[in-house]
């Protein structure tokens, strides 16, 4: 936690919206990304991410600073996103085109897009618990300890969720391919 961030948190806690806006700008891409990969579409992702920042501002007083601010923010965002997904009755439209890395090779462009479509479908069908764990680990690149802290579960649980999530995801991608 940088000195600037600590100061911004302090000012936000006292109700300084400008300071909080700076925190939003600093964290918006990571939080939006997490929400996007959990919800599977940009509209829900934006809603969840907004909701996460609003809740974070309202409960800043309860932020104890024991965990890193980003971890705390991730926790709120993961909750907001999973809430949104659970509330969704029907499967949301998948809209993760931007995940597809740009390619210079135009010939393989179609294949790559097809591959990512399969990845997204597989992710969307992955049970929520596993999806969150896999997204946090393999797409957000977080360590086991941080994931355990975000999900508030023991590290062993993270390990087993990741294992089962990755196995299931690999199978789902294979199924879709087949």
């Amino acid at each position, binding site marked *: 936690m940088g000195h600037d961030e600590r100061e911004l948190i302090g000012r936000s806690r006292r109700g300084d919206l400008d300071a909080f806006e700076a925190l939003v700008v600093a964290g918006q891409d990571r939080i939006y990304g997490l929400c996007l990969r959990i919800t599977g579409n940009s509209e829900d992702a934006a809603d969840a991410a907004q909701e996460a920042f609003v809740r974070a501002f309202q*409960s800043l007083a309860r932020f104890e600073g024991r965990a890193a601010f980003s971890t705390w923010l991730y926790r709120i965002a993961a909750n907001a996103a999973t809430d949104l997904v659970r509330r969704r009755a029907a499967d949301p439209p998948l809209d993760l085109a931007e995940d597809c890395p740009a390619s210079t090779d135009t010939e393989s462009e179609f294949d790559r897009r097809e591959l990512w479509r399969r990845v997204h479908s597989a992710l969307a069908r992955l049970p929520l618990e596993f999806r969150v764990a896999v997204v946090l680990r393999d797409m957000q690149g977080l360590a086991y300890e941080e994931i355990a802290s975000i999900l508030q579960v023991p590290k062993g649980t993270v390990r087993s969720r990741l294992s089962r999530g990755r*196995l299931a995801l690999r199978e789902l991608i294979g199924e879709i391919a087949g």
Partner: protein
Amino acid sequence: MRHEEALARLSALLDDELTEDEGSRLRAHLEGCVECREELERMRATVALLREAEPPRAPEGFAAEVRGRLDRLRSAPGLLERIGGLLRAPRWSWRTAAAAAAVALVVVFAANIVLQAPLFSVARRVEIPFPRIEGDRAEVDRGEGSGIGLKVRFLRPEATQTAVGKPGARDDARGDAAALPPLGDAASLRRVIKTGEVEIEVEVFDSAARSLLEIAERTGGFVASSSYSDPGDGPRGTLVLRVPASAFGEVLRQIEKLGKVQRRQVEGQDVTEQFVDLEARKRNLERHETRLLSLVERATKIADLMELEGEVARIRGEIERLTGRLRYLSDQVDLSTIRVEVTQKPKEQSGGFWDLDQALERVKAAFLKTVRQMITALEAVVALGAALLPLVLAGAAAWLLLRRIVGRRERAG
């Protein structure tokens, strides 16, 4: 290591999150298990693919939208915040609260002072209905043949109109109109000592005292004694009037016109029997004396003479004593005694605020009243607090529970 165990640990192997022991056992399994080796490679490829994903960027204006929502929230606080705001003391400083309390106290104090002023004071003196003497409405109970005693019946004024002269009126002992015997033919044989005590409050003491003297003399009586004092709150005095028994009722009426009657008491003591007894004994002694005197005439021996003379003297003394007693009694019967206590009405308390003594008195009274009211209010608060304690505890528990639930949803949200 069994195959399923190995399969479940491939993920951790990729992340290097296995213990040394687990790692070596898993590698040993992998040596001999093609399936696991293939699975590990597929998983490694999947993870690598996921890691390739472009980090997404938040949409344009995302931070501004968040800011907008927070601005709107601030102008319309959430339910929890609103309840919390209500529960928290109004956003007054302690100084404001203290000033408000002080103003309230001053208002109460001022109200107390104003309410003490004569303009608003309610007459606290209760008019106690005293029986009024109405001589012509009196009845004498003749003691049912058994005793000396005169019972004066008090008749209600309104009842008197119909009751007077009717036999039934005798039994109507309730009532507050005093009665005095109208001493008719039969009654005039009776001898009654009438005494009265009256306390009156008059405007001016001196003129009242003069009037009392005049009343006594006009009816053929006199002022037997008088005393006077002035302890500070106005002169007061006691006059004892002796007036002819026949004028007793009339005199009382006149006395009571002088001022406000505070107390009155009328008594009648029937001394008829004592009279009869005394007179009979006196007559006996006189007959005895006459006989002794006739014996004295005929006495021949000096010794007899001396003895008879001695006896006559003794009887004479006895007769004189009885005569004196009779004279005293008839004096008491003929002249009634009326004891009048006169007080002067305290000066009307109308000095206004600038009557310093009175103003101070009022301020003191108002101050004490305010203090008493504060104590009463404090008592009420304590009692109310005790009464509300269970409710407050329940409310606090509910509030904490609500906070936890909402807080958890926020954290879990």
